[in-house]
């Protein structure tokens, strides 16, 4: 795996869909390490200041430009970095599509130089994924021994003083989540079968991500919550930022799917993003009218899929130009997740906002048709 990643753009490399952060941005990390002369916490590859620059971007003293990985509130990234520097576990919280995993991967890459120690949280994640498992052939042949242990990413991170990432923490069942409590407070993992324990080396830490829209999946116990510092990542702050994100992603996806449609008009994207933002924030862009919010998240990611869906419909069933009717069904589908409540919200929006707005008559009519 790492041999492939270190190769120089060979055929095998281009076939890989997505490279790890520390491989893709290896040059930036190296340049940062070169100029970084500030104090580093034990076992950190970079100082907290350099980690901050890696995430937020900037120009180094050497003139090297670091690209921003996270566009948004710089203070949030500072809180995240400071949390890791105080040896506290970090929980990135937010609705889907707010770059939680992206930030966690880059933090791990910058702090530990390794973002691959990953535990994917699912309803089926069991204790062995967080603690350790057994190689049963070995266990039966030789009896309990260190060699018979199957080491989890958590155990490896503890042994090497690295950062382990837990994705979708709230999807892991409550019993399994509890395993983390001792690890986070005592920084050790007992192995009773061998009558020993693994003590974490300095530099070990946990970055977890969780989705705050799926309430009640497996909500964190208060014992676990208080062992994490929680940073909530918000949706894009301004409409321009969000349009920018949607436009860029739609263009990329369009290329990937090889859609024969024209590039969508910015006006249509703006309209979709405006509707989503207004409903999400519960107030119109001019701040005059309050609105109810639907049950769905309406993140930038969903706006992207609505526009892409519209493009596909325009390409295969229309004349190749994205028009309002192509979007209406997608918008309605994204908003009306609950057939009763959300329908009321969407109808109210159409009646009180869309109907009155200049140049939105076509959208109003198309959406009324599909409802």
């Amino acid at each position, binding site marked *: 795996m790492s041999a492939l990643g270190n190769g120089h753009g060979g055929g095998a490399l281009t076939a890989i869909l997505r490279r790890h952060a520390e491989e893709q941005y290896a040059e930036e990390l190296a340049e940062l390490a070169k100029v970084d002369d500030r104090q580093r916490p034990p076992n950190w590859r970079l100082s*907290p*200041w350099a980690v*901050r620059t890696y995430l937020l971007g900037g120009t180094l003293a050497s003139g090297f430009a670091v690209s921003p990985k996270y566009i948004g509130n710089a*203070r949030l990234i*500072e*809180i995240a*970095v*400071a*949390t890791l*520097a*105080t040896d*506290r576990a970090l*929980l990135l*919280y937010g609705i889907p599509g707010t770059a939680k995993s992206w930030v966690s991967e880059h933090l791990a890459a910058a702090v530990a130089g390794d973002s691959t120690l990953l535990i994917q949280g699912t309803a089926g994640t069991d204790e062995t994924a967080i603690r350790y498992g057994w190689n049963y052939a070995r266990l039966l042949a030789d009896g309990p021994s260190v060699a018979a242990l199957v080491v989890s990413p958590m155990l490896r991170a503890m042994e090497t003083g690295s950062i382990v990432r837990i994705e979708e923490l709230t999807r892991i069942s409550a019993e399994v989540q509890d395993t983390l409590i001792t690890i986070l407070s005592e920084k050790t993992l007992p192995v009773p079968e061998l009558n020993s324990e693994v003590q974490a080396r300095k530099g070990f830490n946990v970055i977890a991500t969780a989705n705050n829209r799926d309430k009640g999946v497996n909500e964190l116990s*208060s014992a676990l*919550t*208080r062992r*994490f*510092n*929680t*940073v*909530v990542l918000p949706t894009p702050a301004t409409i321009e930022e969000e349009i920018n994100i949607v436009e860029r992603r739609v263009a990329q996806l369009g290329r990937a799917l090889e859609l024969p449609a024209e590039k969508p008009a910015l006006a249509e994207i703006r309209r979709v993003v405006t509707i989503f933002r207004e409903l999400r924030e*519960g*107030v119109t862009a001019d701040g*005059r*009218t*309050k*609105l*109810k919010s639907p049950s769905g998240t309406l993140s930038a990611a969903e706006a992207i899929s609505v526009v892409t869906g519209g493009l596909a419909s325009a390409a295969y069933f229309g004349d190749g130009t994205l028009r309002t009717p192509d979007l209406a069904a997608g918008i309605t589908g994204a908003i009306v997740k609950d057939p*009763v409540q959300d329908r*009321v919200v969407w*109808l*109210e929006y159409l*009646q*009180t906002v869309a109907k009155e707005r200049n140049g939105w008559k076509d959208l109003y009519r198309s959406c009324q048709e599909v409802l």
Partner: protein
Amino acid sequence: MSVNVFGIRRHGPGCARSLLAALAALEPDILLVEGPPDAAEVLSLIVHEELRPPVALLVYAPDAPRRAAFYPFATFSPEWQALRFALGRGIPARFIDLPQALRLGAEDAEDEELPPVAPIEELPGADNAAPPMVEEGATPETTTTVRIEDDPIGALAEAAGYADHELWWEYQIERRLDATDLFAGIAEAMAALRADSPPPTGEEARREAHMRLAIRAAQREGFARIAVVCGAWHAPVLVGHSTAKADAALLAGQKKIKVAATWVPWTNSRLAYRSGYGAGVSSPGWYAHLWDVPERHAVGWIARAAMALRAEDLDAPSSNVIEAVRLAETLASLRDLPLPGLGELREAIQTTLCGGDPAPMALIRDRLEIGEALGAVPAETPAVPLQRDLDATQRRLRLRPSAEIKPLALDLRQEGDRARSQLLHRLNILGIPWGKLESLGGARSTFNESWRLGWRPELTIAIIEASVWGTTIAVATAAKVRHEGEATNELARLTALLDAAILAALPEAVEGLLARVRSAAALAADVRGLMDALPPLARVARYGDVRETKADELLPIIDGLLARIVIGLPGACGSLDDAAATRMIESIDRAQESIALLDRDEGRAEWRGALHTIATREAIHGLVRGRAARILLDERILDEAALGNLARLALAAAIPPSDAAAWIAGVVRGNGLVLLQQGALWLALDGWLRDLDPDRFIAVLPLLRRAFADFAAPERRAMGDRVKRLAAGERVAAATLTDDLAGLDRSRADRVLPILAQLLGVELPRA
């Protein structure tokens, strides 16, 4: 002989501490403070032990109390500490700014149309982290920006990269041992800042000239160590600038008006407001903390935050308090700050103690950062302008306060009575319950009000308390209504406020409330709440002319409410139990009444459509279904045959008798006479009753009895007759009328006809 100028930062606790140290070192023999000389008489009250900050010095024109300036002081205000320092040691203290007698007079001369000084323009709320500063007489566009001369030290701190200005000051102090030297440094920095700005003109030039003249006067009087405390911006120009002659020339020919000064209790949340003087403070509670706890504020602050959270039953374990302090300190060092400031503390508290949840931070903001301190003033403080305005209004309206409780009847069609009614309504809003409203018109008159008046001595205190809202009754009431409107999201409360504001004739406040009603209506998930909000609005829109309130602005809001009701109503009528269904039809009746009252075509068809949906949807509670059918019948949307159809369906054998009885109860509520004409309904009802088996009949009998219980005896008798005739096979609805004509004495009836025709305005057909 020396003059020491201390340029200070308004409401800066660190600055207050340095100033005290500097004054103690200097031991001045006179203290001159930038402030209104008009307040000299009440200055001595500063050392009165019952005068507890936050308080505000109020200078106003007794003849026109709307012209007023407030000078708020907190414990940590440098001027406050300096004045207490001087007066406590018997050192004479004087205010040396340009007197308000000249400034308020100048406003008079320059701009007759100047907007009144409303004391509360913006209140810092939970969601209003950085309240805009309000400048005296400023245009709205400039109110949100802070001019550099208002907070030059803040500008310096920001230039040094400190978001928390107090922190910058703290840091500067820590590194300097000699505080006097520090003030010299500030004066130097200000001189540099001012070098790039144009020289002051107009009032600012006159203010600085007046301060220079006052300093020269003190020198002439022979004071040896003069301490001058003024805003940092003015520090470099008060000594050694300009000549006495030039200054005197600047001030010549100013128009002077009569002013009075007094102290009023202030609140922390209003320290953010500024009028004429004093920069706003967005986090007075944080500053008070810095003043009270000079060292290690981070620990104390986070511990207080944890206490506040625990008081609200939120988890805040000590271990997390420790982690919050560590995080705040690490954040500060990551940001290259020597100490955590309010921003770092806020983030640390949210991240560790609140689990990232921003909601509890609103609590921290209200309880800690703003704080809920309310000042107090001693009894001997001179009367407030609000009291004077009330006296004047009472004289003008010939409405003398008296302790005796007596009734007062007002006819709102008369101008004088209307003004009296407005005054009483306004006082009630302000929490000065002089009059109690007995009844608001009758069922038939909208222009009568009867009150009971009774003045109690404690109302005088209520006036002082209410004076934080403004200097005249009108301004204060509007400000209070506006504030309360901002504070609630409850639709019913807002419409009640709106009702009150309309009764009190507060057009500007009404405008603001209408916007609030509009936004609250959009959020209200409860359709019943929306329907209940309609009647007051409809009443005002319809009868507004008595009180000269415009209906045009209300109608769009009513339309908005109606649109939401129509969309939500069918859904809201599902799955109701008996009690909820009863409440629902009461609300529906109210909405129907309002719509009938408005008598407009907009939205009526949609409303009827929604009712029709309800009337025909089987899953909905019988009571609601029946009621909807009945309203449609009264509105002549359903005819006899259609209602008969509905009745047959609702009363079919397949329907449980209790549901059927509920449907009947819904239908028969209201006017019995209309019901009498519905032959098909009675037929269906009759058929249903006959088909019931005895057990079921006994079960539904009480329900039926109750459904008809509200009718008057004659109506019930007529209904009974009707049913009896049904049984005899009579089918003609108009038969009742024809039958009655039979027993008529035609010759006597004919004699009435000409007059009747004249009354009705119709031609009498020739016999």
